[in-house]
């Protein structure tokens, strides 16, 4: 078994080497921004201001902890669960809101942020991340890539092909599995017979690491090590961040039919943002005033984001014919009355 001890930092009251107060607070700001994005999005959905939305509440530690361990030149390949991860690279909230509003202004150029497009089909972006990482390595560029996916994704062929490709090519890739133990209604034990998902790494000839997915610093530390390995030419790493899905899969889902509600309540009490706040308070880095200030900034960013998104005019229907081809075939508009 590849199992490494389930790593944690916060519960062990450890402090990370080389990470000062400024960085710790930056990580906190990122978590707050993501949490605020997520909670506001749920409200916007209920108000009919965005469409169906994939909730990532209690996944913020995994997203912020890992992104902070990357350099700007490193590429992020998000699944829909990480739809707002671009915010941590300076993407405007309005862009992500547009995406969930079905507006083409939700398109972005991946090269502007080194954030690939949101991948909707499960695990199919894993080979893209492997290809990007391999391609950068072939060009002698130092960038690595990180691909985010859930526990269910490890059952997909695309996960396997991408992981194996990355290992064979020794591509500088981090395979980041947010194991929240549910794929919509399918529990982990119905997804795999492996004892842990990190065990799968053995079969690919890469290290498999398990971390507490609710512990942003454990995630940061594990990702930083994986990035160091990648940059040193030592190939990919599989990180299994273990958490529990404390919210519905998406706004269209009602988990009461299948989930353990008592467990959800317990997870909510121990959600990742609160855990990190208590840690920062114990270190004396966070007080009421600073917390309120950081949260107000995030709320304001979202307020501006939704205002900007709603001020955007409806897209021109002519856009139907744009962008699929650099050089479109001549019969593309056959039957168009516009």
């Amino acid at each position, binding site marked *: 078994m590849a199992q490494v001890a389930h790593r944690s930092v916060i519960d062990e009251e450890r402090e990370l080497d080389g990470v000062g107060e400024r960085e710790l607070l930056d990580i906190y700001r990122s978590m707050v921004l993501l949490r605020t994005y997520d909670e506001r999005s749920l409200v916007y959905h209920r108000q009919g201001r965005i469409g169906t939305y994939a909730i990532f509440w209690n996944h913020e530690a995994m997203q912020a902890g890992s992104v902070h361990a990357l350099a700007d030149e490193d590429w992020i390949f998000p699944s829909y669960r990480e739809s707002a991860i671009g915010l941590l690279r300076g993407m405007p909230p309005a862009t992500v809101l547009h995406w969930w509003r079905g507006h083409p202004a939700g398109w*972005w150029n991946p090269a502007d942020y080194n954030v690939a497009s949101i991948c909707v089909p499960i695990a199919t972006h894993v080979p893209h*991340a*492997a290809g990007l990482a391999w*391609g950068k390595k072939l060009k002698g560029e130092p960038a690595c890539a990180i691909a985010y996916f859930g526990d269910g994704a490890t059952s997909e062929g695309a996960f396997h092909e991408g992981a*194996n490709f990355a290992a064979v090519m020794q591509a500088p890739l981090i395979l980041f599995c947010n194991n929240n133990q549910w794929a919509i209604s399918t529990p982990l034990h119905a997804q795999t017979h492996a004892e842990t998902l990190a065990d799968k790494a053995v079969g690919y000839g890469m290290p498999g690491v398990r971390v507490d997915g609710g512990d942003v610093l454990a995630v940061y530390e594990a990702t930083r090590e994986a990035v160091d390995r990648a940059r040193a030419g030592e190939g990919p790493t599989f990180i299994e961040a273990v958490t529990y899905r404390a919210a519905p899969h998406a706004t269209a889902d009602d988990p009461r039919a299948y989930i353990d509600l008592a467990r959800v309540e317990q997870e909510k009490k121990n959600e990742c943002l609160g855990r990190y706040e208590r840690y920062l308070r114990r270190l004396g880095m966070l007080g009421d005033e600073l917390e309120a200030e950081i949260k107000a900034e995030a709320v304001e960013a979202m307020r501006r984001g939704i205002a900007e998104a709603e001020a955007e005019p409806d897209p021109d229907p002519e856009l139907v014919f744009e962008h*699929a081809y*650099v050089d479109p075939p001549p*019969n593309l508009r056959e039957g168009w009355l516009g």
Partner: protein
Amino acid sequence: MAERLLVEAVNDALHVELGRDDSVMVLGEDVGRAGGVFRATAGLRERFGENRCVDTPLAEAGILGAAVGLCMAGWRPVCEMQYDAFSYPCLDQLITHVGRYRWRTGGAMEFPITIRMPYGGGVRAPELHDDSPETYYVHTPGIKLAIPSTPADAKGLLAAAIRDPDPVVVLEPKLIYRTERGEVPDGEHVVPLGKARVARAAADELAAEASCEVLDIRSLRPLDEDALLESASKTGRVVIVQEAPRTVGFGAELAAILAEKAILDLRGPVLRVTGFDVPYPYWKIEDAYMPSVERVISAARRLLEF
């Protein structure tokens, strides 16, 4: 100008294009050390190095998925699928990503991927070495598709595909890889996508009864509708020949275009000579499946008598 076999023309195109553009790389199963199971990639690894002609794991979706990421890293990947029917796992990537990634970026990012593969039957091979999968590919928005049938076109269309900024599939007729020989221009040779070719002005068997034009469609997307309509206007009688199964084959698309745009030129129904809606047969009886000369002549006679 040199005389080359069709597969040699493919190989020549790859040598020229890899030599011309440092970002072009070939990846696929057995393309490096072995030079490809049909030798289409022979010599590339030796000349351009193992990073420009890469033996990949046996994973068609992985190859095409990696190609998407390679484009993001600035490469221009040419993916070989070893056989037509072995390419099907890559359809997941093709449909969900390759045909739509540029669109998804609002046109900001290009995905100049070439997917080339040997296709078609008649080669006395086991199951799933004989398919004509063009419809699966060309039905996918965002994907272009070309099928050469001469050595010169095999080189020129592949060069066009590699240089094209959009994803292009090139289906190479493996039956004539080593039987079709012809003059191929040396050095850079590009046959633009979207242009059909008048293959011959009259077919021998029918010469005594009627004059027959043979139009090689060559590029399924973009499609040269003008050439199709012009040919139909000359003869008024059209027989479409395809090896793929009948239902929703590309012949049906051509027939629909003729019905929409050439109705006043037509002097009879548009007839199709196609494969059948069955799995491609075991090779002892595969000739019964193939669109034969007899079936084509029979359709043409039926049309003349209409």
